[in-house]
């Protein structure tokens, strides 16, 4: 599945592509590319769980975030927690008590909008693993330039020049925000216009997995 950014305008996403089930050992895997940003995700589960991390009423969800270079630090932990909380909202963990679901995210290349790429990739990998989910999610990053223009799916250069970077995760049912993460200073009005701009594409992204699953299933 690929969707082209027709004119490379500011209110368009970069070309996206996704491939599922590309790793043989994990229970689910997916790679997702947004422009040059690419991430690969593996999902194991429901698998055995360590007794110390066991919950009697739900599955233990763990996210491991591997940066492209270096060892994971505080900011990786922050991302892990953000993605874990997002996944816990959509995965029906209550259906697999006393088991673990492990999500391993490996950054392949960061060319901007990394967080949204990670979330999208994770969602596709969870789909591939066949874990029960209440709905899908789609993440969109946008940046606000100094004169207040919104750029969707910014590249790392655009992120550097931006006044603020906002990432939203929308769920597929009512298209409401389940995760919001922002950097920089912006007004409440700008926040809403960013939400609206991203929401439009969140919806499109939620629909697009159809194409991918078709090829996998047949």
């Amino acid at each position, binding site marked *: 599945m690929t969707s082209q950014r027709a004119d490379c305008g500011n209110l368009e996403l970069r070309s996206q592509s996704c491939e599922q089930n590309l790793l043989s050992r994990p229970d689910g895997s997916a790679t997702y590319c947004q422009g040059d940003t690419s991430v690969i995700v593996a999902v194991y589960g*429901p*698998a055995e769980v360590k007794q110390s991390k066991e919950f009697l009423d739900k599955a233990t969800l763990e996210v491991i975030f591997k940066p492209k270079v270096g060892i994971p630090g505080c900011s990786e932990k922050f991302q892990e927690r953000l993605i874990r909380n997002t996944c816990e909202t959509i995965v029906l963990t209550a259906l697999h008590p006393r088991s673990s679901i492990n999500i391993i995210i490996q950054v392949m290349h960061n060319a901007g909008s990394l967080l949204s790429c990670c979330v999208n990739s994770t969602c596709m990998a969870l*789909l591939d*693993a*066949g874990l029960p*989910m209440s709905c899908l999610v789609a993440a969109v990053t946008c940046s606000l330039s100094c004169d207040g223009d919104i750029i969707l799916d910014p590249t790392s250069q655009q992120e550097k020049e931006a006044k603020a970077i906002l990432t939203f995760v929308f769920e597929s049912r009512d298209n409401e925000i389940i995760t919001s993460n922002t950097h920089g200073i912006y007004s409440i009005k700008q926040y809403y216009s960013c939400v609206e701009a991203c929401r439009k594409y969140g919806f499109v992204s939620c629909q697009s997995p159809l194409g991918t*699953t*078709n090829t996998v299933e047949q």
Partner: protein
Amino acid sequence: MAAHVNEVVLPGDILQELSDSEQYPKLRLGPGLRIDVDNVVVCKCGILRFREPSVFWVDTHQKRYVPVKGENILGIVISKAGDVFKVDIGSSEMATLSYLAFEGATKRNRPNVQIGDLIYGKLLVANKDMEPEIVCIDSTGRSSGLGVISGGFMFKCSLGLVRKIVSPDCQLMKLLGKHMPYETAVGLNGRIWIKAKTLSHTIAISNAVCCAEYMSKKQTEVMVKQIVSSQWT
């Protein structure tokens, strides 16, 4: 027939027609579907299937096995603990197998089961809150094909492939059997055991099965022909 049948559905999709209780008074939902308040909601991605009179389920691609009561599975004995064996069936938890759950087994006459043995069994207990339990006898106490399996070759594959092979419309196993006699045991936990006359037959059959996952009927026929011809030359 309801809309969306044989179409791809995604988690979060609401099947409005199914939610209507008058149209399907005895609605039965299989894997991938659940009821949320009053709606039937999809929770796995796959193709919606329907069977008369009112059975619905989602055919998904999945690798990890989640135990379901009554399914036949292939497992490997991991340990002996008192009266039970622990058997790895590929799910999140080990299954237990009582040493009395074999044909003709009594307290005195214990079955000969060693660690590492391959077991073909049936799930007696399988729910999310309990350890799965398997048995190697049916309700009348007969083995009916279940028990320890020796020799042959076992390999793993996706759950979708196993379901495809055991479905009545799949001719692959029969076609192969016409040319190469073999024994097989198919575990719904994504494990297939095969024992043919020669090693090369076993390899050929297992390769054929692995390749058949996304093949149409016609493609499988062609593949079987190719394999058979390569075997004789």
